[in-house]
């Protein structure tokens, strides 16, 4: 039985992407200028909605790649009986996947010729927002209480 931690580089990449995608997500609401966030050195871009949404897309793409990488890795690891996911990890994964899927739907909605009916559009917006907030809260709780993602890990 092999128990290994995920690559430190990928782990930090995930943390960085998660923090920044949440930050840009909040800045998709008109708060960056209102609350002086865009006045902070190096954060002027957060008040530019078009720039902010592009950074949000890129970080979302990075998180999506990492989610597929780790998710598929889990599937492969399970087939070799190399590890199991903690309850905290399952919760975070669920909310992250929900946030990613609704995020993809909303990015598709932004393409020319794609329009969602109003109730569906609102449901998507709210689902994206709430799943992201729940992902943030469960991640913070996991960070404070030192809950790991997985009990036993293969280096995948």
């Amino acid at each position, binding site marked *: 039985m092999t128990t290994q931690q995920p690559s430190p580089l990928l782990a930090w990449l995930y943390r960085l992407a998660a923090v920044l995608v949440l930050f840009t997500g909040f800045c998709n609401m008109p708060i960056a200028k209102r609350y002086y966030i865009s006045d902070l050195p190096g954060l002027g871009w957060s008040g530019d909605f078009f720039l902010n949404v592009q950074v949000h897309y890129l970080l979302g*793409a990075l998180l999506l790649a990492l989610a597929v990488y780790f998710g598929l*890795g889990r599937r492969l690891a399970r087939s070799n009986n190399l590890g199991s996911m903690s309850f905290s990890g399952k919760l975070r994964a669920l909310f992250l996947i929900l946030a990613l899927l609704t995020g993809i739907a909303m*990015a598709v909605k932004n393409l020319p010729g794609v329009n969602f009916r109003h109730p569906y559009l609102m449901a998507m917006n709210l689902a994206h927002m709430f799943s992201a907030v729940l992902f943030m809260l469960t991640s913070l709780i996991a960070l404070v209480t030192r809950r790991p993602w997985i009990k036993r890990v293969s280096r995948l």
Partner: protein
Amino acid sequence: MSVPVSRRAFIKAGLLTASAAASAPTIVRGAGASSGSELATLMDIRNCIGCEACVEACRESNADKFPEPEGEFPRMVPVERVKIEDWSSDEKREVTDRLTPYNWLYIQYAEGEYGGESFDLTIPRRCMHCRNAPCVNLCPFGAAHTQKNGIVRIDADTCLGGSKCRKVCPWHIPQRQSGVGIHLDLLPQYAGNGVMYKCDRCYQLVAQGELPACIEACPEEVQEIGPRREILEKAKTLAAEIDGFIYGADENGGTNTIYVSPVPFEVLNQALAKGPGEPHFKSVADTMAAPNRLMAALALAPVAGVIGAATRFKRTAENLTTKE
């Protein structure tokens, strides 16, 4: 082409009275107005005499949608960054020379010279109803939305009045009324600041196969509405006939408000008074093009993840085999 202002004022006074009876729809009513197909409007600005019959009709038709603030406005936080925008006084409600929460359509004036001739044009201005509207795409709460028939609306019941739509709109069309809306029931001081208002092209009339009020009321048949493809064709034909110019066909990726003018729009733009609530006529690139280019990154991300995981798994499996 030159029309003295005094004549315009004279015509305006006369036609305001006559326009109610002289409504002449310029669209075939059965041309899909209620069928859900994408509709566009064509404005032949040569015909506009600035009588403001459309402005009055718009205000009357949409009066029940106008905001009615009650009680004191919340003290916004931070007060130096969040300005109260209040158009609800009797005096301000009557403003018709710009866009406001109570005036969704107004007449712009452009006087100048082009090709050695003077021009004096009046132009109805309102929401362009973009085909891929940034106000819809970037509204964080889904309050702004596009109907199947191309009408871009802001739902007053769910808008928090953050005015992001106004900032991302290339023409800064939506206008805010503070002290109203759902934000008062949430965190009135800390999030939102009222409701944003703009032309909704009389969606309730269009849904019944009727014309928007501004089109119905126009005595000079300045506007037409119909399926976008037909309207665009008509605009091109008209522009070719008069050796004129088109605005709105490609602006911001294409809009459902097409202007045809005998004067180039860059010339008109220079002649216009511009400011808050007074949109320009500049050329506008597709504002959503850059974010949409990044869809490629989102599409490639899962592929990268699969390749990465497969490669890593293969290496790990090989390592395990070697160790055993």
